[in-house]
């Protein structure tokens, strides 16, 4: 069962094509990762799927409703957490929950239950009267997520929910996303952090508005990259990269933390050449040189540079 079906969706701003004819499906209850660089068109796509922005062409079914012909029904079956903080900073926690619960038409015991749930997941029990603006970033995001799904929607769209949040809070935020997904909610999430993409059941990557890859993280790593990645740990990494870039057997170079990644076709002969070149000719000290399973970042850098 698909909870979201996107068909040839396109959005133009004037002559600028922000989202270029993309199509994909999202399964019910899965965590769907939507990846792309800044300005790739992630938010624009999400906003079309939420019925905020009208597509220039194409259509999508969200929870079974067309975003073009039934935007109101779409709106009532989704939750949305925008890229910017979406609660009122000048209202208290309680007032924010009351307001959004109110406009979603919740009342009575159901509302009390949901309110409790939101307070619980945001760790804000007993702190209902704090001003939302004064909460720490991680807590704010949890509250925003709770409020966005206060009406128990089938599908929730999260646009970079963890940007600007510390790693520990990010981890616990993802626990929350998992919990939602386990309860059957479809989670459509964009992120800049590729390690977060590993938590997603399915991923698509867009670049300059175009869809460039889709699949599980394993599929992406094996299907989209047909050469080997060599991880090199040495001194003067940048200098080493500059030297290797000039070699014809090196297809790609990138720096990963303190290490250097190069992609090559034949990893066995490449390792020999690297050792000869760096240690032999330029007297670098190589501490480690290994063929590794490509990370998603390797895949994306490869795909985006190719595109």
């Amino acid at each position, binding site marked *: 069962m698909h909870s979201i079906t996107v068909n040839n969706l396109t959005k133009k701003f004037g002559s600028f094509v922000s989202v270029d004819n993309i199509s994909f499906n999202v399964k019910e209850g899965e965590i769907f990762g939507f990846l792309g660089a800044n300005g790739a068109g992630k938010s624009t796509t999400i906003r079309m799927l939420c*019925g*905020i922005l009208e597509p220039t062409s194409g259509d999508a079914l969200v929870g079974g409703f067309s975003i073009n012909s039934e935007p109101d029904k779409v709106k009532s079956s989704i939750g949305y957490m*925008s890229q910017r903080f*979406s609660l009122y900073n*000048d209202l208290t926690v309680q007032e924010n929950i009351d307001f959004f619960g109110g406009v979603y038409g919740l009342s009575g015991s159901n509302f009390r239950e949901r309110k409790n749930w939101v307070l619980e997941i945001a760790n804000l029990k007993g702190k209902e009267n704090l001003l939302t603006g004064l909460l720490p970033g991680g807590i704010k995001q949890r509250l925003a997520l709770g409020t966005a799904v206060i009406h128990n929607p089938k599908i929730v769209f999260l646009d970079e929910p963890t940007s600007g949040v510390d790693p520990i809070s990010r981890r616990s935020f993802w626990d929350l996303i998992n919990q939602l997904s386990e309860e059957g909610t479809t989670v459509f999430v964009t992120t800049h952090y590729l390690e977060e993409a590993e938590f997603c059941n399915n991923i698509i990557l867009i670049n300059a508005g175009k869809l460039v890859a889709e699949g599980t993280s394993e599929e992406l790593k094996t299907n989209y990259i047909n050469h080997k990645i060599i991880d090199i740990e040495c001194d003067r990494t940048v200098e080493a990269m500059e030297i290797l870039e000039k070699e014809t057997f090196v297809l790609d170079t990138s720096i990963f933390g303190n290490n250097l990644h190069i992609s090559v076709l034949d990893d066995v002969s490449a390792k020999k050449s690297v050792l000869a070149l760096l240690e032999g000719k330029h007297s670098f000290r190589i501490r480690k040189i290994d063929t590794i399973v490509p990370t998603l970042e390797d895949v994306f850098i490869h795909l985006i540079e190719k595109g």
Partner: protein
Amino acid sequence: MNTILHFVKKEFLQFKRDPKMFIIILFAPIVQLVFLGYAANMDVENVKTAIIDRNRTTESRLLIEKLEQSGYFSIEYYINDYKEAEKLIEKGKVICVLSFPVDFDTKLSRGESAQLQAIFDGSDGNTASIAAGYMIKLVAEHSQKIVLTARDKSGKALLIPATISAETRNWYNPTLKTRNFMVPAIVGLLLMIVTLILTSLAIVKEKEIGTMEQLIVTPIKPHQLIIGKLIPFTILGMVSVVVVLTAMRVIFNIPVRGSILLLFVSSFFYVLSLLGFGLFISTISKTQQQAMMLSIFVVMLPMTFLSGFSFPIENMPYFIQMVSYLIPLKYFIVIIRGIILKGVGIGILWDEILILFLMGITILYFSSKNFQKKIN
């Protein structure tokens, strides 16, 4: 309906947290009223005057005293000749120079008519002609008194000459205070600030901080959003009317002569059009700063100038006069001056009130449509 109530409640909670709001609603109207009330005082009084007294007798001094006591003239200099007078006028030190001839008292005692010369600085024609009017009136009163007392002293039978003097009397504003005329109109300006600017700012603020997008994905309908946003500002607008009317009464002693209810109803109609403009501005602005600029330069200033608030419309070019028919403030000023100063009612003001109502509905309708279109 419930959705709207939730919205209104939210707005008021936000007002409560925003101290700026209280300043704008309570404090600003009073400051503005006082400031504009005094600044808008275009009355001609204390006209700075220099005297060339070549006569130097009790007779001349009596007249000078009378001028001074009237409050219209304030004698600043005693000088000797026209050269000095010219200098004072050129420097703007005086507006009026009054010159007594050497034989002022002798001519009077002989029963001849004595000639005074008064020179006015005509560069501000309005002030000069009003001051000249006062001068003529005061001198005429004085001469009449002299004529009467002279006859008394001669001991003959009193023969009071039938003097008829045309006295102009101004209705409604007996002392012709411009303040009384201006202050009620200030209500119109204040409502503009409270409703127009605050509404557009409040809506654009939600766009800026991103909550507008959040609202759009909720089941709130655009019209509910609009109504929910506008009700609180309408209420604030009405509160500021109460504040201004009270301040007007307390500070300037200008009571409302007509029906307060009618005043509120017409204020409400006027506010409708302001809310419409505010909504429109919020639709086309991306930032609060933009909204502020547009409110001031595209709506407030033209409204103020074309409404007859500061300049009489009758003196404007024909084309501009036509444009002024489209300005809601023009009608509101007529209404509010009518109700406050003249105490007139719906019988006389019905057409202005009706126009204001229709304008309000129309402007609000079109800007709501536009806002809804932009949201979808």
